[in-house]
């Protein structure tokens, strides 16, 4: 017993010495405290974080090929290329900015004012309302799956999200801000300075916020808005019970060459991302919107608009570029009204060849609406921040 005690007692200082040695040998450079990240370090759903801290899109459509890599085809076709590779921090910072009215000139309008997640990332209005209650000329397009789009705005005049957002941010009729004022405002908010420093760790953390960082963050957030898990998608991936008989009938009308919906609203994104002149009417008293004719300075594009995706279309009434139609039923009826039937007198539009006289029956129109409602999926809706770095109140309610 004594021998054992002695052994234990004598081993204590040895152990202590060893611990001390270990402590000094592996001592870390001095850090005062472990910083708690302010921004989300995980990618949003639909994205996987890779070793470079980039969020890479992941979805079941990545099992499939896409003809000529255009992302258009049939049920089991791959999607077009998406804007991904943003960091979780950029995306999360973009989320704060997106909901923060501090981005507008007078601090009353945020991106979410017209792109409200509760309204399919649109606003439920025929045409949106901008600064000083100014009524705009076009409807707010949904932002679901916007990361897949190659052209933005109804008239396709922007080719990147970064380029696009300068439109509303700095238009006197929309958010009515200026680049100088925006960057000055953000740099005066301590919380944003911390968040930007965290989202852009490569730069000096005390450097001022740059406009490009604002654009990157908001684009990162917008490109993370993915909706690919609708009832339709379940059918497409092979679970045919996902749609009922009426919805399948609707799908078959949708893709038949009589109605021809799928020729432009081509799966899997339900847009072929082309321009089309369909001759849809303006709301009362509004003149014809020349659409893509203006930015492209091309007469043949008079009245042309980018084909919008139909995903979550159920959520974004009223419809068309200026909200002429209140319901999906009215929309589908438009297409069977005859080629150019709503074109104003004196206008000679080059109506798209797929607009014809399909003579769809009332029954078929109802089925089309049934099918369109199977394209709804909001499972990846992002969280609306409870409080904003600016201290302002979010413009939309969670």
């Amino acid at each position, binding site marked *: 017993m004594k021998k054992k005690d002695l052994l234990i007692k004598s081993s204590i200082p040895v152990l202590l010495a060893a611990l001390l040695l270990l402590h000094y040998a592996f001592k870390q450079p001095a850090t005062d405290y472990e910083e708690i990240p302010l921004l989300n370090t995980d990618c949003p759903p639909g994205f*996987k974080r890779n070793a470079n801290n980039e969020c890479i899109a*992941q*979805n*079941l459509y990545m099992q499939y090929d896409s*003809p000529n890599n255009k992302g258009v*085809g049939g049920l089991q076709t791959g999607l077009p290329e998406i804007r991904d590779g943003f960091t979780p921090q950029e995306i999360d910072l973009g989320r704060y900015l997106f909901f923060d009215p501090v981005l507008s000139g007078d601090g009353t309008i945020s991106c979410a004012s017209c792109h409200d997640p509760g309204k399919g990332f649109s606003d439920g209005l025929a045409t949106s309302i901008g600064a000083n209650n100014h009524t705009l000329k076009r409807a707010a397009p949904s932002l679901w799956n916007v990361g897949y789009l190659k052209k933005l705005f109804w008239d396709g005049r922007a080719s990147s999200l970064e380029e696009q957002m300068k439109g509303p941010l700095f238009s006197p009729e929309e958010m009515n801000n200026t680049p100088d004022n925006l960057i000055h405002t953000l740099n005066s908010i301590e919380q944003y300075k911390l968040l930007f420093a965290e989202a852009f760790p490569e730069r000096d953390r005390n450097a001022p916020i740059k406009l490009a960082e604002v654009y990157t963050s908001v684009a990162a957030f917008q490109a993370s808005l993915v909706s690919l898990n609708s009832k339709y998608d379940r059918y497409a991936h092979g*679970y045919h019970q996902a749609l009922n008989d009426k919805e399948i009938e609707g799908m078959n009308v949708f*893709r*038949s*060459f009589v109605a021809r919906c799928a020729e432009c609203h081509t799966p899997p994104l339900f847009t072929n991302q082309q321009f089309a002149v369909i001759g849809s009417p303006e709301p009362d008293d509004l003149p014809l919107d020349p659409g893509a004719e203006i930015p492209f300075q091309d007469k043949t594009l008079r009245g042309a608009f980018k084909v919008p995706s139909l995903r979550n279309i159920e959520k974004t009434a009223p419809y068309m570029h200026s909200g002429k139609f209140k319901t999906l039923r009215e929309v589908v009826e438009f297409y069977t009204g005859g080629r150019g039937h709503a074109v104003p007198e004196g206008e000679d539009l080059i109506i798209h060849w797929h607009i014809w006289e399909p003579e769809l029956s009332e029954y078929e129109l109802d089925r089309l609406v049934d099918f369109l409602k199977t394209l709804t999926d909001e499972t990846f809706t992002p969280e609306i921040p409870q409080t904003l770095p600016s201290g302002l109140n979010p413009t939309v309610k969670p």
Partner: protein
Amino acid sequence: MKSKLTNILGAIFLLGIGVFLGRSFFSVPQEVTIPIPSTIKYRNAGTSADTLQVAAAREFNGQIIEVKDGESIQAAVSQANPGDLIRVYPGTYSENVYIDKDDISLQGIVIDGKWPTLDGKKEINDAFLYSGNGILIENFKIINYKGNGIMGQAGNNFVIRNNWIIDTGVYGIFPQYGKNGLIEHNVLSIIADAAIYVGMCDNVDVRHNEVFDSVAGIEIENSRHCLVENNYVHDNTGGLLAFITPGLPIKTTFDVIFRNNFVVNNNHENFGAPGSTVAGIPPGTGILIMAADDVIVENNIITGNNNAGITIVDLANGDPKANDPSAEGNPDRVIILDNIMFDNGKDPTGELKAIMLTQLDSKGPDIFAYGGGTGSTIRDKNKYRTFGLDDYGIPPITDTEEIQTMMTPSPVPARSVSKEQLGELTYYGVCAGCHSFGNRLIGPPTEIIQAIYHGNPQGIVNYINKPLNVREDYPEMPPQDYLPEEAKLAVAEYILSLKK
């Protein structure tokens, strides 16, 4: 003697009646087609250049499902699994058949001249719609539909043959977004746009078909690597077409061979729908090449087409209304080899007529080229009456003998992902909406699920098939039973292997 003769005659008579009755009552007409889906055969293009030999690409081990008059073809399709063969007996089937599965073969059985007939009664949109790969549709008579006889959307490795298609609306046979297909031995007529329309496809052979009384006979549009051979194309508004339609997402047409076809008397009045691209085709158009590149016209018999035998035109002149800055509108490097051409241009119309009148010619030419385009060539130009071919040189080739087919040497493989990839795609594409590794979202963190189901992926599969709410502080999970079986197990295993 007399009675013996009567007896013999009577016996023969009775025997005759017996044979007649026996045949009528006891013999069911037999079909002798060997019930093997032809999609499993594959042309051995790789073995030697001068053979069209076919070989079985794999064994047939599917089920055979029979459909008889009064039954539904769609019901059989719904019941079928990939690899199955559906055999349809003579009868009238008024339905829209849609095939959203891979490797389904639909084989009509023609007995005693009676066809299995799909009749749309001018009420139903399409006879066959398919989106799967490896679809075979053969031996059907298809009449009176409003949209299409057979329409494919993004199905590869298709075979459409031996069908008899009359008045099925806009198109007769229309594969769209497909790679590697064969359209052969079909007879089509009275189609308001193209009888055979290969749209935004690659590697398609169109062989041995007869197309007539339609607006466009065979149209290769925004497609690449197509062989159009041995077809009888007559009495349409336009016979053979290779062109680019602007405004489509896939914007090129090139590498097309028109070879050994009869392109005869394509003078039908144009009854295309107003606004359609083909509505602008002048009657009397034999072959039309608009904006397509690298088209070879070889060994065709092109006669009696009243506007022009071959028209080569750019988009700006051919379809001036539609504009697509991202489509290149000039037909470049067209090659015209030996062809037999006479009697074309007897009654020219429209712009061509006006242009020919400036040449003091009241007839249309055999070959008419107008607008942009470079590098085009022609063999023995002096044989034909031509317009606009001044800059056509000598072709770099004399024939295309070495090209037997444009189909791919073996079927386009289905894109497959590994089990791990499928698990990953499913986890991030579906599950991540509610589960994150270390945080509570809508559902519990993935690391907690890992702890519960350690070594038990089947437990996760069972749960996602039929969730059972065990946590009061969490909402009940909706069943994810719609996921394919392999995806369920793959994602379960992926979840258990996931590290932060």
